[in-house]
């Protein structure tokens, strides 16, 4: 049965804002701007406030995955000593750099911008630091960052203080590279804008609590672009206001992302970027909508507060799902399952991303007992399709939906 994903009218506007962002990035030097590479979960606001063009290599990693370039490029990094078992964003990106091949070229742009400074936050994993240090050595530029608490339960004041101080300590190097003084009022403005973006993104995601859902996880992995790379800028706010309007209209009209939606699934873990289309099609054929995900929710930073910039950034970036222990993670998933009226949970065990694979310490079994919801595990990877089996995954998903239908 042939099915087509329902496009959003707002897509054209998104292509425009994202396209403008990429063009701007590649014209940094020409426009007299410095470029900072930044991990996707902060501290982008600080960099933006200091006048940097902010580039997110994780976004490039996802582009390499979605364009299916990653699997051919990863081996180049493997050959240089970066193991096939570590982050395949890292290996794909370094492979891309070595081969001088990038999805940027498909947009008729020369390639990712060279960094003047690299700023990491280990709140997601250690790999981001290793990744950035490769480029720091290549270009002889500073690589600075924040070492965040990991696997924490409650976020206590000592942890927040430590992260806030580390963010402040980035400022002298950033001032030196960019050649201008830090301005706290400008930071407050950026945080205010970022907070607004994040609120809108949350509202976009929450439209999926409607039955039927007007949007699926596969749409959201594309729609999240501005929340990742443009938060703190007005263009992201404008875009999400437009998208939200369209989604609310879909809800009012009863328009479903998955025609005849019969099952609602929660996706835990990374997207499988090179298989988004195939998986989206299979779920549509099975009348199953993936209505919510940990991944897309991870760019909601409700703690951001312009009146307390450093502490609120620290709190926002240290309270995200990935850097928490299993107890708060499970409580979070339970809340999502109820909010989005989920029938079953799919865990993606991404071979090269242990930090985003939450099925390795018995969480599925515990949540199944607690929530009485069935689960399944897909073995795959975010980018490295050598670690993914189409056939096994197809059968696994089909069998899971059969089971949901029996229930």
């Amino acid at each position: 049965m042939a099915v087509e994903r329902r496009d959003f009218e707002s897509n054209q506007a998104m292509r425009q804002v994202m396209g403008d962002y990429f063009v701007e990035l590649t014209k940094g030097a020409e426009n007299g701007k410095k470029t900072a590479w930044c991990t996707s979960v902060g501290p982008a606001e600080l960099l933006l406030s200091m006048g940097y063009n902010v580039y997110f290599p994780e976004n490039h990693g996802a582009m390499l995955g979605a364009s299916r370039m990653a699997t051919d490029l990863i081996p180049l990094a493997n050959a240089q000593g970066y193991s096939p078992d570590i982050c395949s964003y890292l290996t794909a990106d370094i492979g891309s750099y070595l081969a001088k091949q990038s999805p940027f070229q498909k947009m008729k742009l020369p390639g990712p911008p060279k960094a003047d400074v690299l700023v990491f936050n280990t709140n997601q994993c250690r790999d981001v630091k290793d990744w950035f240090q490769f480029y720091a050595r290549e270009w002889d530029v500073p690589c600075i960052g924040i070492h965040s608490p990991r696997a924490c339960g409650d976020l206590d004041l000592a942890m927040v203080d430590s992260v806030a101080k580390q963010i402040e300590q980035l400022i002298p190097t950033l001032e030196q590279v960019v050649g201008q003084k830090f301005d706290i009022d400008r930071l407050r403005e950026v945080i205010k804008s970022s907070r607004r973006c994040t609120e809108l993104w949350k509202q976009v995601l929450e439209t999926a609590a409607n039955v039927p859902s007007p949007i699926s996880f596969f749409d959201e992995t594309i729609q999240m672009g501005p929340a990742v790379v443009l938060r703190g800028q007005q263009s992201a706010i404008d875009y999400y206001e437009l998208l939200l309007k369209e989604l609310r209209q879909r809800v009012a009209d009863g328009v479903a992302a998955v025609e005849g939606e019969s099952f609602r699934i929660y996706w835990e873990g990374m997207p499988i970027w090179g298989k988004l289309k195939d998986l989206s099609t299979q779920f549509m054929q099975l009348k199953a909508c993936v209505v919510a995900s940990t991944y897309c929710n991870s760019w909601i930073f409700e703690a951001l507060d312009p009146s307390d910039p450093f502490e609120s950034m620290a709190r926002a970036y240290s309270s995200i799902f990935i850097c928490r222990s299993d107890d708060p993670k499970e409580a979070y998933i339970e809340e999502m399952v109820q909010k989005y009226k989920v029938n079953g949970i799919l865990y993606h065990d991404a071979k090269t991303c242990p930090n985003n694979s939450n099925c390795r310490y018995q969480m599925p079994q515990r949540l199944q007992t607690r929530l009485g919801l069935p689960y399944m595990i897909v073995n795959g990877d975010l980018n490295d399709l050598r670690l993914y089996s189409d056939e096994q995954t197809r059968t696994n998903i089909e069998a899971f939906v059969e089971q949901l239908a029996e229930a």
Partner: protein
Amino acid sequence: MSHYCGIDVGASAAKLVLIDAGGKVVARALRRSGIAYAETAEACLAEALAGAGLSRDDVAHTASTGYGRHNIPWANDSSTEIACHGRGVFHHFPRALAVIDIGAQDNKVIHIDASGRRTHFKMNRKCAAGTGAFLEEIAYRMNLDVGELNRLAERSTKEASLGSFCTVFAATEILTRIRDGEKVEDIVKGAFRSVVKRVMEMDVIEGDLALSGGVVAHNPLLVKLIGETFGREPLVPPDPQFMGAFGAALFALEKSRKEAMPC
């Protein structure tokens, strides 16, 4: 139009079962799946129909399963092999149980409640360890016919230990065992034990346990070893290799009855 067909086109073999309206098997066919699934299925059907003295018009409904389930143009429905093995085994053992299907390319553990409803299932990770493909590789490495493995392993008096997770590493371990002068039958039994260990690692299995699939059908020693490991005698349905096809045929029968019911 009084018969129902289930066809299971698996990674290695295609199995077809024809049943009557009472669910009794009237004919079966087995062929290598090959590369032209539709043709293989057609040949299986022709063979089964000839064996039962039936014509194509006698088949009211067909359900397909297995990796080639979507390649059978004349199938009315399809289900996964997880559903079909569960359904087939439950027909023979109608109780809450766990079904272990050891296939050529993958293994499944299927949990079924007392009403026959599936409550959970697990597939093996993307790895050949513990599957029929593992035994095929071991046979190849040892220059044996895969059909000889069970007979050889039955003769073992001192089982060789193979500790590796990975099929390639296990094959290397076998080279070491050969070099150490261990007997072929002991090494083969060690390979069988390795299959059982990989299956045991897949999931928690409590209560009754049933086995299904071609690997079990051809290697009865595995049944014994699984019994030893799990501490209880596994249930084995008749013709375990045909259990997926049989379950599919039962689904075909049920679907056909449902469609015939007045609205």
